[in-house]
């Protein structure tokens, strides 16, 4: 999915005001946040796979590594879904946002107990992205 092709994340194709036209467009922070979540989750999946196969990870072949592989992959899918769910479907969006938060927290705790520092860091980044996405209900303009 190309983020660049998306309309503003609130879905409203409001006409640009004169003021808007006068200033260069600033990033849609909600899209930025979701992108951070998606990228963090995808990178987390890759790290989990590496942990699962690497003898130096301490969790090679462990069930816990499979768990975080799955949970980070699911998080990436949730982030992707949030790009596509129209804003009118508020309940669904809210549920998916909540599920993503639970996924981030659960995966982060699991990564902490797996002592996978890289995964903990990536999930912390994903959490920051989630916060940005939630805090930015509409595109922010200077």
């Amino acid at each position: 999915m190309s983020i660049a092709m998306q309309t503003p994340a609130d879905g409203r194709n409001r006409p640009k005001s004169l003021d808007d036209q006068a200033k260069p467009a600033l990033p849609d922070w909600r899209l930025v946040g979701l992108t951070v979540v998606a990228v963090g989750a995808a990178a987390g999946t890759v790290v989990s796979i590496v942990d699962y196969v690497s003898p130096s990870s301490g969790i090679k072949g462990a069930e816990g590594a499979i768990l975080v592989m799955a949970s980070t992959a699911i998080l990436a899918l949730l982030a992707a879904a949030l790009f596509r769910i129209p804003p009118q479907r508020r309940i669904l969006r809210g549920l998916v946002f909540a599920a993503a938060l639970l996924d981030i927290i659960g995966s982060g705790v699991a990564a902490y107990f797996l002592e996978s520092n890289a995964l903990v860091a990536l999930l912390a980044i994903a959490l920051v992205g989630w916060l940005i996405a939630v805090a930015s209900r509409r595109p922010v303009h200077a």
Partner: protein
Amino acid sequence: MTGSTVMNLSRITVRLLAALALASSLGAASRGQTWQEFNGDLQARKYSPLTQITPANVKELEVAWSMHTGDVSDGNRPVPGTYARDMPGGSEKAPATVWSATPLFVNDTLYLGTPFYRIFALEPDTGKVKWTFDTKSKIEALTQPELKNRGVAYWQADKVVAGQPCQKRVYIGTMDARLFAVDADTGKACEDFGDHGVVDINKWNTENAKWPLSVLQPPIVYKDMLFLGWAGKDWEDAQAPPGTLFALDARTGARRWTFNAIAPDVAPRTGTSNVWASMSIDPQRDLLYIPVSSPSPNFYGGERKNAVPYGTSITALHVATGEVAWSRQLVHHDLWDFDTNSAPTLVDIDKDGKTIPALVETSKQGFIYVLDRTIGEPVYPIEERPAPPSDVPGEQAAPTQPYVPVPKPVVDDQWPGVYPLADALSLGYCSRTAKKLKYAGRFTPPSLAGTLTYPATIGGTEWGGGAVDPRSQTFVVNSSSAVQIYQLMTRADYDKAKSNGGTETAGYFPMLGSPYGIKLTTFLNPLGMPCWKPPYGTIAAYDLKTGNQLWKEPFGEVQKWGFYMPDAWGSITIGGPVITASGLIFIGASMDSRVRAIDLKTGAVLWKALVAAPAVSLPAVYSYKGREYVAFAAGGNSILTPRVSDQVVAFALPR
């Protein structure tokens, strides 16, 4: 004789003395750089005088080299190559491996035995293979449930004759009861040892010979002699081979003497009380100290009441004859499989203005026995305290048991109690089960209803024993806090349980020939979580001059499904520590597959590194070409975790 001649002679004498002193000091330094015995030295001190790696720089340790022997099996699949020679087509699963070898560094070579009963000679600074020797022994778990090996032994002639083979030798034992001697330089069998390089130990297995005398622990070598114990099949038979210990000629393999821990008139009714762990020797006194295990059947003694005084003892033998110098029984009428399981550490203790030649013996029951090693009497008092009676028909538990208040036992007197988290997660399973079990403190005998046993056979201190810093007389030991359930079963009930699928894995052991079988399980909830409160493993230091505990810390981490549990929980441990003169403790042993360096003064972990499997072995500390190495065999043990490996890894400071 003129004055000048006298002067010259004096100068020559002084120079000679100086040269001798230098040679002596160099010799001492050279000895200090090796790790020639299973426990580092004959005294089982597990102490290295090396000081290059210090508490200040230990954080910089890096992998100097790592290698894999190829001799590993997880028990789930056929192992091609070595194992396949015994199993045509290689279709049979190989038993799992348990590798607890201490690497030996001597003769400028690192020597290791493997659980496939091969010897590896490695370059000490690179890990490159110099040579290997294959005993071509049966790769079958004939006595133990897994393929086990604790390494090799080394001997060299007092006067090495150049060009003659086998002036230096490496010995390895096998599960099928053979002892091999190999030239340490070439890896070729020593033809003059036994039958073309091998002695069949089982030819001396003449009483209750139900299984071979497996040689898993290498012999201890002293004065051209090898002192050799053996391991058997645990908990299988009431009548088993009696606990024999053999002294062999290091050159020929001829038997010099045999010590038997069980009197001939008692032997038909019992067995074992063997020496399966390592031993130590006092070269000044020519005494061999042997840890004697418990007699069979391990959990019912109705047929052997007071009949095996050497059972579960520490016993001193004269090396020349095998005669007993003294013996001290550590558990009377053992009903818990409290084998004396490690070599006593020999150290001189400065106490109350006197220097006492002492030994320190750790134990499964969690006591640390400090004895005068010349006579076997306690340095710190050992009290006979009343012990709970048995209610099993035919059994009569000992009315008292030796109790050691000082040094403080490594495990508490009372079991830790139900862990609320484990209980909650299992919806009360732990507390319900605990209420049903019999428990009256230490030494509660096994019962038909089920006995909560603490400490138990996998608790206290295992065969790694402790280490000592002889200068500060600080003794360090790791230990496990484990609760097990011992339930005797009448023969009819046992047979019924077996026919309903009761397996060894589920804890069923027959003790054939006795009225009872046993079900022995670790007290876990259905999720596999220990029902008792952590910590599960600790490491502690003691001042032997006073008997005081200096510090005690949780040690290692529990790992389940990859998740590491909190540090405060510690880990069950197998394997032991070593100490260096710079004030460091090096130890693997924990189930999290990590090796650690610990500050001897404080117990703080200063460094840790991940290895391929739990390093259930003693590390070797040695120096080669000016660089200090700490080498571990990371082999794993199924008691801790299914993770096994064949890795040898050496750590050193960056060049």
